């Protein structure tokens, strides 16, 4: 019999059973997904720390003169809305590593997939503007 978790297309999300009915498998009632041993906690701590450092890097990036110069408040209602949406984007960029970490650590059940997504986020969301400013 196939592993009940492998037939999901990409991710296994916690809490999704509440809204959309899915086929039930009696053997899958107790999923070995929330294993929180010491190595798992250490790995989560390291990746969480990386996410926090990346968020700090993004904070430094968006406050740098070269990126700050690309965000100007204009005059008029449309320009104000555009500025607000662009500002929201900058705030989102700063929060991105932490949001990615929280979503992956909290909602993905399968440990291997969880850590694959966490590692992907850590690599993908490196704060290149700050890193290139330092180099």
């Amino acid at each position: 019999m196939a592993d009940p978790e492998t037939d999901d297309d990409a991710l296994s999300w916690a809490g999704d059973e509440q809204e959309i009915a899915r086929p039930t498998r009696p053997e899958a009632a107790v999923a070995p997904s929330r294993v929180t041993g010491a190595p798992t906690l250490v790995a989560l701590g390291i990746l969480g720390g990386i996410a926090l450092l990346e968020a700090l890097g993004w904070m430094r990036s968006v406050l740098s003169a070269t990126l700050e110069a690309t965000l100007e408040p204009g005059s008029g209602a449309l320009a104000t809305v555009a500025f607000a949406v662009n500002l929201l984007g900058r705030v989102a960029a700063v929060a991105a590593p932490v949001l990615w970490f929280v979503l992956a650590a909290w909602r993905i059940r399968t440990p291997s997939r969880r850590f694959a997504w966490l590692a992907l986020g850590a690599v993908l969301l490196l704060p290149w503007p700050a890193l290139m400013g330092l180099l």
Partner: protein
Amino acid sequence: MTVVAEPPRARPGLRLAIALAFLLLFLWELLGAVSNLLAWAGFAAVLHRQLSAFAWLVLGGGVVVPIAAFVLAVLLTRRRTSGTLALVLVVAYAASQALTLSLLAFFQVGIGVR
């Protein structure tokens, strides 16, 4: 007697509303990337030059990132609840913004701003 609980209903209308709301944000980001690409291509044309492969790669990447982020978020959550869809779209939007800023920084280095 066996009591079978009625499965809760999916809410496609809510999913559509969430996807459309986020689509506006992604489209705004896409508009910025396209206008950036056109502006630099126009600037190069004024100078009777062409954009380098690096510039096409970086500016084109800025166009691809918001499209890919939105499509991936919707595809990955197509069988999930609307709450999960909203959470994934928030993260996809944030990641898309971060990647766009990274590409902008690469471009600035490429043209010698930094």
